[in-house]
Protein backbone atom coordinates (compact mmCIF):
# COMPACT_ATOMS: atom_id res chain seq x y z
CA UNK A 1 0.00 0.00 0.00
CA UNK A 2 1.34 3.41 -0.92
CA UNK A 3 0.53 6.49 1.12
CA UNK A 4 -2.65 8.31 0.07
CA UNK A 5 -2.72 12.07 -0.55
CA UNK A 6 -4.76 12.50 2.66
CA UNK A 7 -2.21 10.51 4.71
CA UNK A 8 0.72 12.51 3.30
CA UNK A 9 -1.13 15.79 3.94
CA UNK A 10 -1.74 14.78 7.58
CA UNK A 11 1.89 13.65 7.94
CA UNK A 12 3.30 16.88 6.48
CA UNK A 13 0.94 18.96 8.63
CA UNK A 14 2.74 17.72 11.75
CA UNK A 15 6.02 19.37 10.69
CA UNK A 16 4.48 22.45 9.05
CA UNK A 17 4.37 24.55 12.25
CA UNK A 18 7.80 23.57 13.52
CA UNK A 19 10.16 26.33 14.58
CA UNK A 20 13.03 24.28 13.10
CA UNK A 21 13.67 24.38 9.32
CA UNK A 22 13.40 20.99 7.55
CA UNK A 23 11.99 19.51 10.74
CA UNK A 24 10.66 16.46 8.84
CA UNK A 25 14.26 15.37 8.20
CA UNK A 26 16.15 16.88 11.14
CA UNK A 27 14.26 14.87 13.79
CA UNK A 28 15.65 11.69 12.25
CA UNK A 29 19.17 13.15 12.04
CA UNK A 30 18.92 14.17 15.72
CA UNK A 31 17.88 10.63 16.72
CA UNK A 32 20.75 9.07 14.76
CA UNK A 33 23.31 11.39 16.40
CA UNK A 34 21.87 10.65 19.84
CA UNK A 35 21.94 6.90 19.13
CA UNK A 36 25.59 7.01 18.01
CA UNK A 37 26.59 8.97 21.14
CA UNK A 38 24.73 6.46 23.36
CA UNK A 39 26.44 3.50 21.64
CA UNK A 40 29.84 5.14 22.00
CA UNK A 41 29.19 5.74 25.71
CA UNK A 42 28.02 2.14 26.11
CA UNK A 43 31.23 0.80 24.54
CA UNK A 44 33.31 3.04 26.81
CA UNK A 45 31.25 1.82 29.78
CA UNK A 46 31.83 -1.85 28.87
CA UNK A 47 35.60 -1.31 28.72
CA UNK A 48 35.75 0.56 32.05
CA UNK A 49 33.38 -1.51 34.25
Amino acid at each position, binding site marked *: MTQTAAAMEAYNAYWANS*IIPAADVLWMVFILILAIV*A*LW*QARTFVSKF
Partner: protein
Amino acid sequence: MDLKALKKQESKRKISKGYMWAFFCALFWGIWYLPGTVVWVLNPFDKMNSAIAETSGDGIALVVTAVLITAFNALTVMLALMVWNGVLGKYKELGRTLREFHTCSKWFFLASICGGPMAILGSFIAMGFIGGSFAAVAGLLYPVIGSILAYYWYGERISKRAAIGIAVIVLGGVSIYGGGLLNELSSGNVPWIGYLGGLMAAIGWGTEGAIAGKGLDISEPDAGLTLRFLGENIIWWIIIVPILALVGFPMYSFAVQAFEPLTLLILIFAGITFGFCYVTWYKSFPLIGVGRGQGIGNLYGFCAVIFIFLFFGDVPDWTIILGGLLCIAGSFIMFTEDTSALETLRGD
Protein backbone atom coordinates in the same frame (compact mmCIF):
# COMPACT_ATOMS: atom_id res chain seq x y z
CA MET B 1 44.97 5.75 48.48
CA ASP B 2 43.43 3.23 50.89
CA LEU B 3 40.81 0.63 50.05
CA LYS B 4 37.97 2.65 51.58
CA ALA B 5 38.78 5.71 49.45
CA LEU B 6 39.04 3.55 46.32
CA LYS B 7 35.66 1.98 47.03
CA LYS B 8 34.14 5.42 47.56
CA GLN B 9 35.64 6.67 44.27
CA GLU B 10 34.34 3.62 42.39
CA SER B 11 30.88 4.07 43.89
CA LYS B 12 30.84 7.74 42.87
CA ARG B 13 31.81 6.82 39.28
CA LYS B 14 29.07 4.21 39.11
CA ILE B 15 26.43 6.61 40.41
CA SER B 16 27.52 9.28 37.94
CA LYS B 17 27.26 6.76 35.04
CA GLY B 18 23.87 5.64 36.38
CA TYR B 19 22.55 9.19 36.22
CA MET B 20 23.95 9.55 32.69
CA TRP B 21 22.11 6.40 31.50
CA ALA B 22 18.87 7.53 33.14
CA PHE B 23 19.17 10.90 31.38
CA PHE B 24 19.77 9.16 28.02
CA CYS B 25 16.58 7.21 28.77
CA ALA B 26 14.66 10.47 29.28
CA LEU B 27 15.95 11.91 25.98
CA PHE B 28 15.14 8.79 23.92
CA TRP B 29 11.77 8.32 25.61
CA GLY B 30 10.83 11.97 25.03
CA ILE B 31 11.73 11.95 21.34
CA TRP B 32 9.94 8.60 20.81
CA TYR B 33 6.69 10.58 20.94
CA LEU B 34 7.49 12.07 17.50
CA PRO B 35 7.41 8.76 15.53
CA GLY B 36 4.87 7.42 18.04
CA THR B 37 2.46 10.21 17.12
CA VAL B 38 2.94 10.54 13.34
CA VAL B 39 2.66 6.79 12.67
CA TRP B 40 -1.07 7.02 13.42
CA VAL B 41 -1.83 9.11 10.32
CA LEU B 42 0.14 6.86 7.94
CA ASN B 43 -1.28 3.92 6.02
CA PRO B 44 -2.05 1.15 6.71
CA PHE B 45 -2.85 2.28 10.28
CA ASP B 46 -5.02 5.21 9.14
CA LYS B 47 -7.06 2.97 6.80
CA MET B 48 -7.18 0.21 9.41
CA ASN B 49 -8.59 2.61 11.98
CA SER B 50 -11.29 3.83 9.55
CA ALA B 51 -12.19 0.33 8.36
CA ILE B 52 -12.62 -1.09 11.89
CA ALA B 53 -14.44 2.05 13.08
CA GLU B 54 -17.14 1.51 10.42
CA THR B 55 -18.04 -1.89 11.84
CA SER B 56 -16.98 -1.83 15.51
CA GLY B 57 -16.96 1.85 16.53
CA ASP B 58 -14.21 4.39 17.14
CA GLY B 59 -13.08 3.12 20.55
CA ILE B 60 -12.53 -0.50 19.48
CA ALA B 61 -10.88 0.69 16.24
CA LEU B 62 -8.33 2.76 18.14
CA VAL B 63 -7.45 -0.02 20.58
CA VAL B 64 -7.10 -2.65 17.83
CA THR B 65 -4.98 -0.30 15.69
CA ALA B 66 -2.86 0.49 18.77
CA VAL B 67 -2.25 -3.25 19.24
CA LEU B 68 -0.85 -3.58 15.71
CA ILE B 69 1.27 -0.40 16.05
CA THR B 70 2.60 -1.62 19.43
CA ALA B 71 3.38 -5.05 17.97
CA PHE B 72 5.40 -3.42 15.17
CA ASN B 73 7.03 -1.13 17.73
CA ALA B 74 8.16 -4.21 19.70
CA LEU B 75 9.50 -5.79 16.51
CA THR B 76 11.61 -2.77 15.51
CA VAL B 77 12.80 -2.38 19.13
CA MET B 78 14.09 -5.95 18.92
CA LEU B 79 16.04 -5.04 15.74
CA ALA B 80 17.50 -1.94 17.44
CA LEU B 81 18.51 -4.04 20.46
CA MET B 82 20.22 -6.61 18.27
CA VAL B 83 22.33 -3.75 16.83
CA TRP B 84 23.02 -2.49 20.39
CA ASN B 85 24.09 -5.95 21.59
CA GLY B 86 26.11 -6.54 18.41
CA VAL B 87 28.07 -3.30 18.81
CA LEU B 88 28.76 -4.17 22.46
CA GLY B 89 29.67 -7.82 21.68
CA LYS B 90 26.91 -9.20 23.92
CA TYR B 91 25.47 -12.01 21.76
CA LYS B 92 27.12 -14.76 23.85
CA GLU B 93 25.80 -13.19 27.06
CA LEU B 94 22.36 -13.00 25.44
CA GLY B 95 22.38 -16.74 24.75
CA ARG B 96 23.63 -17.52 28.25
CA THR B 97 20.92 -15.39 29.91
CA LEU B 98 18.22 -16.94 27.69
CA ARG B 99 19.22 -20.45 28.81
CA GLU B 100 18.92 -19.46 32.49
CA PHE B 101 15.14 -19.18 32.36
CA HIS B 102 14.20 -20.17 35.91
CA THR B 103 16.77 -18.02 37.66
CA CYS B 104 16.43 -14.74 35.78
CA SER B 105 14.54 -14.78 32.44
CA LYS B 106 11.19 -15.25 34.20
CA TRP B 107 11.49 -11.76 35.71
CA PHE B 108 12.03 -10.20 32.28
CA PHE B 109 9.09 -12.08 30.74
CA LEU B 110 6.93 -10.86 33.63
CA ALA B 111 8.25 -7.31 33.07
CA SER B 112 7.30 -7.60 29.40
CA ILE B 113 3.65 -8.20 30.35
CA CYS B 114 3.53 -5.02 32.49
CA GLY B 115 5.54 -2.91 30.07
CA GLY B 116 3.90 -4.20 26.88
CA PRO B 117 0.17 -4.96 26.98
CA MET B 118 -0.32 -2.60 29.90
CA ALA B 119 2.06 0.39 29.64
CA ILE B 120 2.98 0.79 25.97
CA LEU B 121 -0.52 0.00 24.73
CA GLY B 122 -1.92 2.38 27.34
CA SER B 123 0.41 5.12 26.17
CA PHE B 124 -0.68 4.61 22.55
CA ILE B 125 -4.35 4.71 23.61
CA ALA B 126 -3.76 7.98 25.49
CA MET B 127 -1.95 9.39 22.46
CA GLY B 128 -4.66 8.32 20.02
CA PHE B 129 -7.63 9.49 22.11
CA ILE B 130 -6.23 12.69 23.63
CA GLY B 131 -2.82 13.67 22.22
CA GLY B 132 0.96 13.30 22.29
CA SER B 133 1.63 15.85 25.04
CA PHE B 134 -1.00 14.31 27.33
CA ALA B 135 0.29 10.79 26.75
CA ALA B 136 3.85 11.91 27.45
CA VAL B 137 3.08 13.41 30.83
CA ALA B 138 0.28 11.03 31.96
CA GLY B 139 2.76 8.21 32.47
CA LEU B 140 4.80 10.43 34.83
CA LEU B 141 3.05 8.88 37.81
CA TYR B 142 4.94 5.61 37.35
CA PRO B 143 7.68 6.22 40.00
CA VAL B 144 4.92 6.43 42.62
CA ILE B 145 3.73 2.94 41.70
CA GLY B 146 7.35 1.70 41.53
CA SER B 147 8.20 3.09 44.98
CA ILE B 148 5.07 1.65 46.62
CA LEU B 149 5.73 -1.76 45.09
CA ALA B 150 9.37 -1.66 46.16
CA TYR B 151 8.24 -0.85 49.71
CA TYR B 152 5.84 -3.79 49.94
CA TRP B 153 7.95 -6.25 47.92
CA TYR B 154 11.60 -5.66 48.85
CA GLY B 155 10.83 -3.85 52.12
CA GLU B 156 12.52 -0.78 50.62
CA ARG B 157 12.23 2.06 53.12
CA ILE B 158 10.63 5.26 51.87
CA SER B 159 12.39 8.26 53.39
CA LYS B 160 10.63 11.53 54.23
CA ARG B 161 12.30 13.20 51.25
CA ALA B 162 11.16 10.43 48.91
CA ALA B 163 7.61 10.68 50.30
CA ILE B 164 7.59 14.44 49.59
CA GLY B 165 8.80 13.74 46.06
CA ILE B 166 6.02 11.21 45.56
CA ALA B 167 3.40 13.68 46.86
CA VAL B 168 4.63 16.38 44.43
CA ILE B 169 4.42 13.88 41.55
CA VAL B 170 0.85 12.97 42.58
CA LEU B 171 -0.05 16.69 42.57
CA GLY B 172 1.43 16.94 39.10
CA GLY B 173 -0.65 13.96 38.00
CA VAL B 174 -3.79 15.59 39.39
CA SER B 175 -2.97 18.73 37.40
CA ILE B 176 -2.43 16.67 34.24
CA TYR B 177 -5.61 14.63 34.56
CA GLY B 178 -7.80 17.22 36.31
CA GLY B 179 -7.01 20.11 33.96
CA GLY B 180 -7.69 18.09 30.83
CA LEU B 181 -10.77 16.48 32.35
CA LEU B 182 -12.27 19.89 33.28
CA ASN B 183 -11.77 21.13 29.71
CA GLU B 184 -13.35 17.98 28.30
CA LEU B 185 -16.26 18.11 30.78
CA SER B 186 -17.01 21.72 29.83
CA SER B 187 -17.13 20.74 26.15
CA GLY B 188 -19.34 17.74 26.94
CA ASN B 189 -16.85 15.29 25.43
CA VAL B 190 -14.94 13.07 27.85
CA PRO B 191 -12.59 10.56 26.13
CA TRP B 192 -12.41 8.36 29.25
CA ILE B 193 -10.52 5.62 27.41
CA GLY B 194 -7.68 8.10 26.83
CA TYR B 195 -7.40 8.69 30.58
CA LEU B 196 -7.55 4.93 31.16
CA GLY B 197 -4.65 4.59 28.72
CA GLY B 198 -2.64 7.13 30.74
CA LEU B 199 -3.36 5.20 33.93
CA MET B 200 -2.33 1.91 32.28
CA ALA B 201 0.98 3.52 31.29
CA ALA B 202 1.71 4.70 34.86
CA ILE B 203 0.83 1.39 36.55
CA GLY B 204 2.51 -0.72 33.86
CA TRP B 205 5.87 1.08 33.83
CA GLY B 206 5.96 1.41 37.64
CA THR B 207 5.36 -2.31 38.09
CA GLU B 208 7.83 -3.19 35.35
CA GLY B 209 10.60 -1.17 37.02
CA ALA B 210 10.14 -2.99 40.33
CA ILE B 211 10.12 -6.41 38.62
CA ALA B 212 13.14 -5.56 36.45
CA GLY B 213 15.05 -4.43 39.56
CA LYS B 214 14.59 -7.94 40.92
CA GLY B 215 15.74 -9.61 37.67
CA LEU B 216 18.78 -7.34 37.31
CA ASP B 217 20.11 -8.60 40.67
CA ILE B 218 21.29 -11.72 38.83
CA SER B 219 21.67 -10.74 35.18
CA GLU B 220 23.23 -8.23 32.84
CA PRO B 221 20.96 -5.31 31.70
CA ASP B 222 21.66 -5.35 27.93
CA ALA B 223 20.86 -9.06 27.66
CA GLY B 224 18.03 -8.88 30.21
CA LEU B 225 16.25 -6.08 28.38
CA THR B 226 16.53 -7.90 25.04
CA LEU B 227 14.83 -10.91 26.64
CA ARG B 228 12.14 -8.60 28.00
CA PHE B 229 11.40 -7.49 24.41
CA LEU B 230 11.56 -11.09 23.17
CA GLY B 231 8.78 -11.75 25.68
CA GLU B 232 6.82 -8.73 24.48
CA ASN B 233 7.10 -9.84 20.84
CA ILE B 234 5.78 -13.28 21.83
CA ILE B 235 2.84 -11.64 23.64
CA TRP B 236 1.88 -9.47 20.65
CA TRP B 237 2.68 -11.68 17.64
CA ILE B 238 1.92 -15.14 19.03
CA ILE B 239 -0.91 -14.39 21.48
CA ILE B 240 -2.77 -11.08 21.05
CA VAL B 241 -2.59 -10.43 17.27
CA PRO B 242 -3.73 -14.02 16.40
CA ILE B 243 -6.57 -13.80 18.96
CA LEU B 244 -7.78 -10.51 17.44
CA ALA B 245 -7.53 -12.07 13.95
CA LEU B 246 -9.56 -15.07 15.13
CA VAL B 247 -12.22 -12.73 16.55
CA GLY B 248 -12.53 -11.26 13.06
CA PHE B 249 -10.31 -8.15 12.90
CA PRO B 250 -8.22 -7.85 9.68
CA MET B 251 -4.88 -7.92 11.53
CA TYR B 252 -2.76 -9.83 9.03
CA SER B 253 -3.95 -8.04 5.88
CA PHE B 254 -3.06 -4.66 7.43
CA ALA B 255 0.17 -6.00 8.96
CA VAL B 256 1.41 -7.00 5.50
CA GLN B 257 0.55 -3.53 4.17
CA ALA B 258 2.80 -1.92 6.81
CA PHE B 259 5.80 -2.85 4.64
CA GLU B 260 5.69 0.53 2.92
CA PRO B 261 8.85 2.73 2.82
CA LEU B 262 7.64 5.74 4.86
CA THR B 263 5.72 3.64 7.39
CA LEU B 264 8.69 1.33 7.84
CA LEU B 265 11.05 4.29 8.23
CA ILE B 266 8.89 5.79 10.99
CA LEU B 267 8.56 2.40 12.71
CA ILE B 268 12.34 1.91 12.59
CA PHE B 269 12.91 5.29 14.26
CA ALA B 270 10.27 4.41 16.85
CA GLY B 271 12.22 1.18 17.44
CA ILE B 272 15.59 2.93 17.80
CA THR B 273 14.28 5.53 20.25
CA PHE B 274 12.21 3.10 22.31
CA GLY B 275 14.81 0.32 22.32
CA PHE B 276 17.66 2.62 23.33
CA CYS B 277 15.44 4.38 25.90
CA TYR B 278 14.63 1.04 27.52
CA VAL B 279 18.17 -0.34 27.48
CA THR B 280 19.56 2.83 29.09
CA TRP B 281 16.71 2.73 31.66
CA TYR B 282 17.63 -0.86 32.61
CA LYS B 283 21.36 0.01 32.65
CA SER B 284 20.70 2.73 35.24
CA PHE B 285 18.89 0.43 37.73
CA PRO B 286 21.87 -1.59 39.02
CA LEU B 287 23.96 1.60 39.30
CA ILE B 288 21.61 4.01 41.08
CA GLY B 289 18.61 1.87 42.06
CA VAL B 290 15.12 1.57 40.59
CA GLY B 291 13.71 4.64 42.40
CA ARG B 292 16.41 7.02 41.23
CA GLY B 293 16.49 5.49 37.73
CA GLN B 294 12.76 6.02 37.44
CA GLY B 295 13.06 9.51 38.93
CA ILE B 296 15.55 10.74 36.33
CA GLY B 297 13.85 8.74 33.60
CA ASN B 298 10.73 10.68 34.55
CA LEU B 299 12.26 13.71 32.87
CA TYR B 300 11.01 12.12 29.63
CA GLY B 301 7.75 14.04 30.08
CA PHE B 302 9.60 17.35 30.04
CA CYS B 303 11.76 16.18 27.10
CA ALA B 304 8.66 15.08 25.15
CA VAL B 305 6.95 18.45 25.62
CA ILE B 306 10.16 20.19 24.43
CA PHE B 307 10.60 17.89 21.39
CA ILE B 308 6.91 18.16 20.47
CA PHE B 309 7.17 21.96 20.72
CA LEU B 310 10.43 22.07 18.67
CA PHE B 311 9.45 19.65 15.89
CA PHE B 312 5.62 19.91 15.81
CA GLY B 313 5.29 23.51 17.00
CA ASP B 314 2.59 22.40 19.50
CA VAL B 315 2.36 24.55 22.62
CA PRO B 316 0.78 22.36 25.36
CA ASP B 317 -2.04 23.57 27.65
CA TRP B 318 -0.91 25.33 30.83
CA THR B 319 -2.29 22.52 33.01
CA ILE B 320 -0.07 19.98 31.23
CA ILE B 321 2.96 22.27 31.59
CA LEU B 322 2.22 22.82 35.29
CA GLY B 323 1.68 19.09 35.86
CA GLY B 324 4.87 18.21 34.00
CA LEU B 325 6.88 20.75 36.01
CA LEU B 326 5.50 19.43 39.31
CA CYS B 327 6.35 15.85 38.32
CA ILE B 328 9.88 16.88 37.39
CA ALA B 329 10.24 18.80 40.69
CA GLY B 330 9.09 15.66 42.53
CA SER B 331 11.63 13.55 40.67
CA PHE B 332 14.44 15.97 41.57
CA ILE B 333 13.46 15.86 45.24
CA MET B 334 13.67 12.06 45.11
CA PHE B 335 17.00 11.70 43.35
CA THR B 336 18.86 14.48 45.16
CA GLU B 337 18.79 12.41 48.35
CA ASP B 338 22.09 11.58 50.02
CA THR B 339 23.81 8.85 47.93
CA SER B 340 24.97 6.96 51.02
CA ALA B 341 21.31 6.04 51.60
CA LEU B 342 21.28 4.02 48.37
CA GLU B 343 22.74 0.82 49.83
CA THR B 344 20.61 0.79 52.94
CA LEU B 345 17.27 1.29 51.17
CA ARG B 346 16.99 -2.35 50.12
CA GLY B 347 15.44 -4.47 52.86
CA ASP B 348 16.18 -8.03 51.67
